[in-house]
């Protein structure tokens, strides 16, 4: 995944006999295709097969009638969805939180990777790296509990403030600050893990370039600007495309756990909406409609982001 790929060259310009060509390619890529089989099987069972359940989005589904007998209602659920102010509120919350995360979270792993790259002492580097990786393996329940114990109303910080007669800082129950709180939690939990892919990109940069630049008198910042960042551009674009495709997925457990502390207005996102108004209310059709709506929007976002990546001369997710 370096700067350019001669994709257009390797691809045959015209295909004379497509069927034969197809067989040749199959034989040539046989072992690669075999290797993808487990992943395909996994997707088929856990992603594609359950998609049949999307049929409920067009039904008035109830658990005693099932898919076969529940009456079809066409786009009724979607009509209701689009006139539901709570749904629009959830969508706007999702987009706002996503935007905040894009600005405040996305650059953090890149910056961290650059810092790590400068650390030459291998022991310090692997120690600090382990420390920042670790939170990735914590569950959201644990992460929120840690935040609650530190910053909560009865947590360490506020207890200390209270002892000294100072005003308390109610960050955990402030609905207005919730988007920053969840972003901070995401940074704490995931940023360390996120640097892995950027470190790999850094390792792929030709060291000779640095030597040559240094010989020409380029300082640290100039090397960063002219060699390191351009070297990472492909990966950064790829991650950005993935992030945009996931823009409507801002976390489910994290919101669910903290919903009580800040209220629905601040914490309702599309996933929790589908859960509360679908599963909890026993209105599966409505939840499925909300989920499908989100899925379609996400697909459009991925395609658009991919196009954007191409416009910048990058590969993005895939190229036809």
């Amino acid at each position, binding site marked *: 995944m370096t700067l350019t790929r001669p994709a257009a060259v390797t691809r045959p310009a015209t295909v004379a006999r497509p069927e034969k060509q197809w067989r040749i390619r199959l034989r040539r890529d046989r072992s690669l295709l075999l290797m993808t089989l487990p992943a395909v099987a996994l997707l088929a069972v856990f992603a594609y097969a359950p998609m049949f359940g999307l049929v409920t989005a067009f039904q008035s589904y109830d658990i005693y009638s099932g898919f076969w007998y529940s009456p079809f209602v066409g786009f009724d659920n979607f009509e209701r969805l689009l006139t539901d102010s709570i749904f629009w509120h959830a969508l706007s919350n999702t987009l706002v939180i996503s935007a905040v995360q894009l600005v405040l979270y996305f650059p953090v792993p890149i910056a961290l990777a650059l810092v790590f790259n400068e650390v030459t002492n291998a022991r310090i580097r692997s120690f600090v790296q382990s420390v920042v990786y670790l939170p990735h393996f914590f569950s959201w329940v644990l992460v929120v509990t840690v935040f609650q114990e530190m910053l909560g109303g009865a947590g360490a910080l506020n207890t200390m403030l209270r002892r000294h007669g100072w005003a308390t800082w109610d960050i955990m129950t402030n609905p207005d600050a919730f988007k920053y709180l969840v972003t901070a939690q995401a940074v704490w939990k995931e940023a360390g893990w996120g640097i892995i892919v950027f470190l790999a990109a850094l390792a792929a940069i030709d060291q000779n370039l640095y030597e040559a630049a240094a010989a020409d008198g380029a300082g640290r910042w100039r090397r960063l600007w002219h060699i390191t960042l351009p070297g990472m551009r492909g990966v950064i674009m790829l991650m950005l495309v993935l992030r945009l495709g996931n823009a409507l997925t801002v976390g489910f457990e994290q919101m669910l756990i903290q919903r009580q*502390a800040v209220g629905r207005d601040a914490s309702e996102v599309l996933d929790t909406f589908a859960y509360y108004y679908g599963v909890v*209310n026993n209105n599966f059709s409505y939840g499925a409609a909300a989920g499908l709506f989100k899925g379609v929007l996400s697909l459009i976002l991925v395609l658009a982001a991919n196009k954007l990546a191409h416009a910048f001369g990058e590969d993005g997710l895939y190229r036809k």
Partner: protein
Amino acid sequence: MQSGATPGMSRRSLLTSAAVIAAVPLLDACGSPKEKASGTTGEGDLAKALPAYAASDLVKPDIPVVAGANGASTDPAFLAYPANPPKTVTGQVGKGGTYVTMTPLWGAIPPSSGNAYYDAVNKQLGATVKLQPADGNTYADLLPPLFAADKLPDWINIPTWTMTKLNFGEAVRTKLADLTPYLAGDKIKQYPNLAALSTNAWVAGVWNGKLYGLPIYSSNAVIAGMYYYRKDLFDKAGVSADVKSTADLEAIGKALTNANAGQWAFDDLFGNDAAYICQLFGFPATGYPWTTESGGKLQHRYETEGIVEALNWHAKMVKAGYLHPDAVANNSQNGKQRFWSGKVAVCADGTGAWNGDDAKSGSAAAPGYNRQAFKLFSAKGDKPTVQLGNGAGMYSFLNKKLNDGQIKELLAIANYLAAPYGSAEWLTVNFGTAGTHYTMTDGNPLLTEQGSKEIATTYQFLACPASASTVQSGAVQVTKDAAAWQADMVKYAVKPLFYGMNVSEPSQFSALGGPMNDMITDVKLGRKPISAWTDAVNSWRKQGGDDLRKFYDGIREKYGTGK
């Protein structure tokens, strides 16, 4: 960055769909789903479906039952187990059948194989009852896929609070066994221990004129809960616990809050969906939300003046800083720990919170721990009322696929499990084998180490006798205190509208409550002004509340109000 499931589906809906898919071929087996019943039972049909009552006077309680208002009465209280427990069941119980069951469990799930307690009870039952306890906290989410997949066990416990999610009128019709032919009227007398359950306990087991449910932990004193206080902390601070109004409570808030020292007077006093505070401000509780205005028009609890006053008052307490910060964050998980450790002095909790095991946990956290409850009071200081709940909070049901012989075998087993406190059977069901699982200490059974590991509330959630106050962990005084409190409480009991009628609401109303409950949380904690609540009530009316009222008007006209 976030762990995402397939776009378009949350993880839960994914699992549900997977389960539902697995179910598809089986759904053909059930009856035509077209004819859907939404309705209830009229008085005449109810009388036909209900079993006869035949009291059991096996053991005399140490503190006798006290009758209260409107059919309420206290649970019998026992301070010591009879020295020679009599047998209530003679002859063969089961016929060697094997049955799969499912019950909720709040606590650690005991080992299922090599469990000497299960083996001992099953031996007495003469059948293999396979116990499969599932996490009580997620039980409500577990049931709908189970019904959809038609994978119900032979015998299942279903708490009443999960039933609205299950569209239960339809559930009983298609999936659960009609017990009317086995238990109605005098037929129940073949099962004397079941016949000793009070009539009121069976009422909410009747759906659309037929009896389906066996009542679990039935009682004539079922209420949502009460306001508890730490008597030791009150005494230490010299604060009186004689609370007559919310003004008195407010004074306690001021006296016992010392935030700098990490101590607050109150935990959450509202309860989820106003479960507890409705008693103080005199509006209906969650389960039976309707009342009548002076003109006789049906009024929903959300429309009452009482809930507005309750919201205002609670928000005022939050603003004054009398609530523990975790309660302000609406975190109820650690509520018990806050009370035990003395970080809060007053809390609202269910009736089950007051027992010997609680005293044991509390004393471990704070020496001198003493849980007591305020006598019933009302916000304004006038005569309080408390809304009586169903005769049982849970019912167990048999699978419709069982044949006649199997149903009779399971009812015989239920009769054994329902043996009253004081009998030999009760000891086996609740405490296993003498010497192995329990020893008699000071006249009461006490679990051994093996007993604590292997025994959990399992069989009891399939069938059990009426509730009795008994001594746990040797705490005799707790049993006495709780019984005295209950004897005072039952004087103020009232039955709500549509009591015990099991009205099956049309499903379009199921979504109405969710946003309102969210709004209650926001306003009670002062995150939103009271005007937001009034707006929410207006849109509730428009979005279906008024239609729901019409539906209940129809029920009232046709079937009465169950009073």
